[in-house]
């Protein structure tokens, strides 16, 4: 197999970063990205892109930590380079505050982000309703810039990208040797994964350029994340809701909750409301599978189900998926040489 043809389904942060890792790990591959949506219309575009991990109940912690560490290291290098502004990657400092003391004093990622420490009494004065807090510096991936930057890097490797709705992975078996499934919430339909469920997030993107720090309530429901041009205010975690329509009552509620953490947001302008469905799962599915029909086999690598933590672990899971693609290629080459005997 001279040039394995790999199709990556999905063009959010997972699809694009996985495609890029594949071009890096298997330079002989010809990679094509297929998706019904591209930036600015993916779920990733709604997300703030903050590197604050979500904990997956069924993925071993050491694996999540490895994914986060790889992602952080990768983005840290970009943030410190001339490409940072084009890639939309920047450092941001801030606080995570808790109304009641959290069970875990030190989250698993505390030694990966920068300068993690408990908040001082003086800092907590700013949050009269909160008892304890953590201060740290982390990274933010602004979208669309980050996705557009990934697309640009992909195009430079000769990767083709097509708008196409894939209804069934099998439909790709005649055109491609390997399919990589990064369809996010789409995997519910595409591969019938009933363990995948939406957690609906509504956010406001506002103009408030004086907000330089992030503030997150440890309950995960209220957060203020300053991006390059807009500040993302959130949010909701409506488990099981498939609605992509903004709700006006929710908008007011989010705004009020954020203003109580940061009163100056009352002066925010130009409020844009967005909704995204976090493609949630008890564990991220990074796994090989072989589909077969009538003696024909199609190797598949899954990389979906990142829920609330897509940005935080994207590069780590993309690398792992790319290595699985490498294994698929070896298996194909092994079987094709066996076929010659």
């Amino acid at each position, binding site marked *: 197999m001279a040039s394995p043809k790999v199709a990556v389904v999905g063009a959010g942060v997972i699809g694009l970063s996985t495609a890029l890792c594949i071009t890096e790990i298997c330079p002989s591959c010809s990679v094509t990205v297929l998706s019904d949506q591209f930036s600015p219309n993916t779920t990733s575009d709604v997300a703030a892109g903050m590197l604050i991990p979500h904990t997956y109940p069924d993925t071993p912690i050491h694996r999540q930590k490895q994914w986060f560490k790889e992602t952080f290291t990768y983005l840290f290098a970009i*943030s410190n380079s*001339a490409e*940072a*502004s084009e890639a939309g*990657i920047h*450092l941001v400092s801030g606080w995570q505050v808790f109304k009641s003391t959290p069970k875990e004093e030190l989250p698993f990622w505390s030694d990966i982000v920068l300068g993690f420490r408990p908040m001082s009494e003086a800092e907590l004065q700013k949050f009269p309703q909160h008892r304890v807090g953590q201060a740290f510096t982390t990274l933010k991936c*602004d979208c669309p810039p980050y996705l557009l930057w990934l697309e640009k890097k992909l195009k430079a490797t000769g990767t083709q990208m097509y708008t196409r709705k894939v209804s069934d992975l099998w439909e790709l078996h005649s055109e491609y040797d390997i399919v990589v499934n990064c369809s996010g919430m789409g995997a519910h339909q595409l591969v019938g994964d009933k363990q995948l469920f939406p957690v609906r997030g509504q956010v406001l993107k506002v103009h408030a350029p004086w907000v330089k720090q992030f503030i997150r309530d440890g309950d995960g429901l209220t957060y203020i994340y300053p991006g390059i041009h807009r500040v993302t205010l959130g949010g909701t975690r409506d488990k099981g809701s498939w609605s992509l329509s903004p709700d006006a009552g929710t908008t007011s509620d989010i705004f009020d909750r954020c203003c109580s953490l940061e009163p*100056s947001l009352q002066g925010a302008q130009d409020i844009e409301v967005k909704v995204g469905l976090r493609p949630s799962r008890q564990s991220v599915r990074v796994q090989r599978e072989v589909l077969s029909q009538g003696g024909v086999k199609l190797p598949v690598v899954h990389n979906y189900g990142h829920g609330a933590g897509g940005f935080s672990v994207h590069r780590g899971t993309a690398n792992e998926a790319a290595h699985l693609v490498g294994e698929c290629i070896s298996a194909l080459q092994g079987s094709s040489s066996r076929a010659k005997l």
Partner: protein
Amino acid sequence: MRVAIIGAGVIGLSSALCIHEQFHSLVPSLELEVYADHFTPHTTSDGAAGLWQPYVRDHGKLQETLWNKETFDYLLRHLHSPAAKEMGLFLISGYNLFTEPVADPSWKNIVLGFRNLTPKELELFPGYSYGWFNTALMLECRSYLPWLTNRLTQKGVKFFHKKVESFQEVSGDGVDVVINCSGMRAGDLQPDPELQPGRGQIIKVLAPWVKHFIITHDSKSGIYNSPYVIPGSEFTVLGGVYQHGNWSEENSAKDHKTIWDNCCRLLPALQKAKIVQEWSGLRPARPSVRLERESIRLGNLQAEVIHNYGHGGFGITIHWGCAMAAARLFGSILQEKKLATSPGPRL
């Protein structure tokens, strides 16, 4: 009672406001007038980025450290008020970088969350082996000075666009007290060889992805002669020039190159930033701030002058503490004239 404030930078306007707030109810006849040849956005204060940060060494000037603290605490109290945005006031975190370990500054417990930098953080800044991280405040004068002006105007304070050539000019006109907040030009009103320009030049760029201030220090070149990057609400200020004794307010191409090259080396992402403006200004530098009363004999009249100038590169940082000190001096003048019914309240 007529009071003339000379100067409409951050020092002049805040002194006027502080005096009005403390004494207008005690002295019904109080009339404040501000005289200046430059108003916002053309004052020295307008050129400053607006970061609250004293110099790293206080050289034992405890009074100034106290005024800095009073200013920080005052601003912090206003952070959650509805006026904060209009004042140009917001929190900001950032880095101070050094090439060798240094003692902690006098203001380490004034700012929030002061700590040393971790080795991983220092990886961001090759060439620097030591540093601090803390959360401080920004007070952008392009918003703060108009806010002060509005407050003063609402209170009936009058403004005069005029270059005052001498104290006699205002005191001879029936003004009882002169507050001298003339900054760099104080020497024109009364010679002061200790007041010297600390020339600075800055480049304003569009770099909205920069969320932290970064101030580097080089003990050999001296304060502010090492690159710094300070993100504002709209523009990011790049600087790193402090030329003692240089009176030129012309932008220098050589300084531009120094600032640009050094800041881009510090933050490679800046290479893509769009340059919006260039500006030079003169920090009114003095071995210590001149904040004191003086009685000046002018013919058969005695004029009371309160000097409040010489704040160097830390005017915004120290302004409110100095305004309150000036107000206390004003209170003592009133007591002597038996005009106040009781001593002014201490804020």
